[in-house]
């Protein structure tokens, strides 16, 4: 670990890190200049492919492979930057955009050069006004310096970037929800196929990549695929579908931790290492009870599972959904898991776009049960009902169009399966008379009126 040098966050502490001058003083845009002179777009695609870079947005899809799906016969090709970072606990894109926007822009320009895209829509989360200002400034500087616009740096390659501010909905971070929203429609995720690579924004081939992913592209172009593959977790040879987890990753750690923040480390760090070595341990000297491995969509790890490596396949081995955004939220021993699940259900019921029945109704049903449990009217059978909802919603069972429901399901499944005793005790203590009830009970708002 000692020899690891942060690259993505290397410049964020400098006062002028967000300016073009500051960025260029650290060698910024040299990679772009070299690329435009010496490399063909296919060289960059092959470079990214050989680096085994996997998307940093949550699903971990190999970036080079995604690019190669593009229907190159149809023009124009659009590039969407997914900067709608709204997974709870996640703030790594924000730091990049606020403190080092040119790194992101250079990554975009390189990615567009590789994919043949001539227009980029920078879809920025509404709640990031500071990032909005910083990125807009950086884009303006780029246009002035000739890094954007027509015939970039004298080459044949032209690119425009439009900054688009979202309207504060979690679903807009889903790639096709983002596309619909960008087109001015309700952010109802699209059915696939066609995939965005064939028919995306304005029915044209489209790449949607995450902010950190394009920053990694920039680093790979500067430092090479071998550098990138020199760190991380190699692919499991016994699993042909494992593409490995290479490269540096921006880990967010927050919650009950001494030093919350965004830290850069090679993929494969364990939760315990992240808490101890970067986060300064659980706060107030308390013991940890649980942690969320990568945004709450990914589920919950109990304290005895903290040896879970945070790479693309690690959390899956601990019954979590995956690495997600690698945003760890630590909870100390005073936290009630009932409250945690209640809060998670609240979030997903609020953010479900409402298109697919199982997600729209399932998330709100689970929330209603959690509200009733929290209010001391819980039944033991509610836990099984929530588990049934959790097991049945999402793209994994096939009952929804997008993955929001999977994200909603995992906290339900993990919290109740890993902390069942706590839930049962809470229900028995708060509702000793009614906890064994099995007939439908009045909803909370009905009870209030009785």
């Amino acid at each position, binding site marked *: 670990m000692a020899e690891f040098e942060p690259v993505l966050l290397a410049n964020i502490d400098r006062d002028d890190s967000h300016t073009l001058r500051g960025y260029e003083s650290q060698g910024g845009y040299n990679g772009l200049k070299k690329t435009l002179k010496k490399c063909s777009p296919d060289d960059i695609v092959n470079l990214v492919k050989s680096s085994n870079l996997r998307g940093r947005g949550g699903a971990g899809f190999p970036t080079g492979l995604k690019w190669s799906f593009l229907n190159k016969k149809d023009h124009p090709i659009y590039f969407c930057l997914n900067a709608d970072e709204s997974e709870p606990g996640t703030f790594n894109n924000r730091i990049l955009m606020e403190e080092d926007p040119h790194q992101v822009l250079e990554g975009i320009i390189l990615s567009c050069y590789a994919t043949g895209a001539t227009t980029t829509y920078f879809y920025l989360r509404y709640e990031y006004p500071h990032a909005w200002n910083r990125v807009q400034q950086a884009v303006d500087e780029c246009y002035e310096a000739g890094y954007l616009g027509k015939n970039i740096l004298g080459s044949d390659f032209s690119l425009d970037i439009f900054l688009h501010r979202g309207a504060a909905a979690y679903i807009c971070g889903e790639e096709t929800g983002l596309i619909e929203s960008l087109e001015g429609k309700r952010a109802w995720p699209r059915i696939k196929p066609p995939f965005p690579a064939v028919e995306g924004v304005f029915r044209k081939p489209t790449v949607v990549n995450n902010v950190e992913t394009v920053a990694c592209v920039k680093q790979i172009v500067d430092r090479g695929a071998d550098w990138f593959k020199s760190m991380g977790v190699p692919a499991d040879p016994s699993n042909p579908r494992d593409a490995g987890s290479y490269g540096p990753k921006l880990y967010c750690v927050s919650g009950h931790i001494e030093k919350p923040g965004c830290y850069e480390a090679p993929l494969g760090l364990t939760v315990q290492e992240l808490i101890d070595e970067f986060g300064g341990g659980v706060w107030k000297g308390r013991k940890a009870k649980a942690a969320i491995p990568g945004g709450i969509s990914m589920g919950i790890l109990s304290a005895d599972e903290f040896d879970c490596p945070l790479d693309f396949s690690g959390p899956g081995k601990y019954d979590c959904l995956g690495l997600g955004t690698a945003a760890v939220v630590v909870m100390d021993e005073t936290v009630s898991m009932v409250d945690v699940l209640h809060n998670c259900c609240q979030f997903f019921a609020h953010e479900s776009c*409402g298109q697919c*029945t199982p997600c729209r109704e399932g998330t709100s*049903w689970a929330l*209603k049960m959690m509200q009733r449990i929290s209010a001391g009217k819980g039944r033991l059978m509610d836990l099984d009902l929530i588990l049934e909802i959790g097991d*049945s919603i999402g793209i994994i069972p096939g*009952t929804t*169009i997008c993955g929001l429901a999977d994200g909603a399901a995992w906290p339900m499944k993990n919290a109740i399966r890993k902390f069942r005793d706590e839930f049962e005790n809470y229900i028995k203590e708060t509702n000793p008379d009614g906890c064994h009830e099995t007939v439908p*009970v009045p909803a909370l708002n009905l009870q209030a009126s009785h």
Partner: protein
Amino acid sequence: MGTVLIDGVEVEIGDDERLNGIQAAQRADKEVPHYCWHPGLSVVASCRMCLVETGRRDKETGDISMVPKLVPACQTPATDGTVFITDSEKVRAARALVEEDLLIRHPIDCPICDKAGECHLQDYHFEHGREERRADLQPFTSRRRSLGDTVTLFVDRCVMCSRCVRFCRETAGTSELMVVNRGTHEEIDVFPGFPLDNKMSGNVVDLCPVGALGDKDFLYQQRVWFMKGHDHVCGGCSAGCSIRVDENQDRIYRIKPRENQQVNQWWICDEGRYDWHYIHDGNRVAGPQRQADDQAVEWEAILDDMDTDLRRQERIAAVLSPFQTVEEAYLLAQYVRSIDAEALLGVGPIPVSGEDESFAQNFTIRAEKCPNRKGVEHVVAGLQGELLNWEAFQEKLEADDSIQAIWVVGGAPLGSECFSDETGACLRRRRTLIVQELFPSPLWNSADYQLPTPAFAERAGSFVNCDHRLQSVDWAIRPPAGVYTDGQLYWRLLNRTGLFQADVVRRELAADIGYFTLAAEEIPLDGVCLTLNHLATESTMVDSA
């Protein structure tokens, strides 16, 4: 040809057919329940009611490999080798879950809901739902708001299938309806100040699989299980949309479109849907009367007089109505020609209003506001060798004083009277004028014999639309007491025994007039196209038309 395997049953799919899982399953008599999918709208795959298991069968080995997760049948194409399983435990569990989900916030107010009895939510619940409720008991809510002049939204009954939104966007092209809010707060709504206001608005009520969209015209008028549906053809314009007339004891309660890919797909316009109330109007001509008596008389008393009167004249003429079926028009022509073999035949005035109006999928509201111009014109041209339209007929009549008796059939609905004071002045100068009307018109008032005629829903026979498509239907309701249907009246005047049988007349007609040759066989529900016959007989049509 491709072969699709549905629950172990092989189904053939044509090479140029693009079917989804729901349609392929229909061929194997398997119903895949669905809310959001509709063959006339884009696919959204959001209700998740049609989830099935799918896989592929290897052509060589016959091995089947299944996809591990469920897929929506509406979104899954059925191609050669596709396998669908529509009744597994997993599929049933998914359906039960969706049904249970949809009922969590549903008011379950079936006793006061117009849709009860033909509601998909209700039907699917009994077929696919759980027997007992597990969700908490919700407070009863019944919020409603008007979306426009034709439709009321019962907000809490909605299952968010978004069919109505897509219809307004894709077919009507007016996009009034939208989804507002998110998650369980979602509702269908219109933008303030822009109500649902298009000429096809009523279709959203048909599309609604539940009781959320209520037709203001039909609201609380009748329980659906008391009504009987009759296949019919709309009499509103020359498009001749296939409809279903829902009646109870000869009273119409509503008109619904009937799928006909050759004519109206799945839709009808609001004119056709709502402008039928005149049929039950109290001012309709209720029975035969004579100018001389100035009061209603019995048919028995008038028929013989009329017949004798006609036979006394040297020459007679008849004006057939574009509101009649071809069988009725043919019988009347037969009757007058049985008296005078050279009887002059003409076609009555064609009501026209505005211009043709086209929507997506070639759905068109025609400016010609009568259902059978083409058919009646061909009866006249076929029998007479020459087509006389209303103007040509009047000119001929003006020039021929030997014609002293004229039988005129009107039948225009209320509000589009064809015979005003000016029209038909030359008709009034003859010795005997017989006029059949739906509503009293100036011409009818001055007629010697004032007879009723039925409304379109009371007619039996065939209508030929503007594209030469002939559709045959039986009557949907009986006319009011005292009104003979045209068919029965002419049948009787021709001294034929028993009741008027439209299909018997149709076969005679097919043998007699070249244009109708194809109508000799049983007519399929979506009709037969007579365009080829039309082209063959066009020379007679061009002469004077």
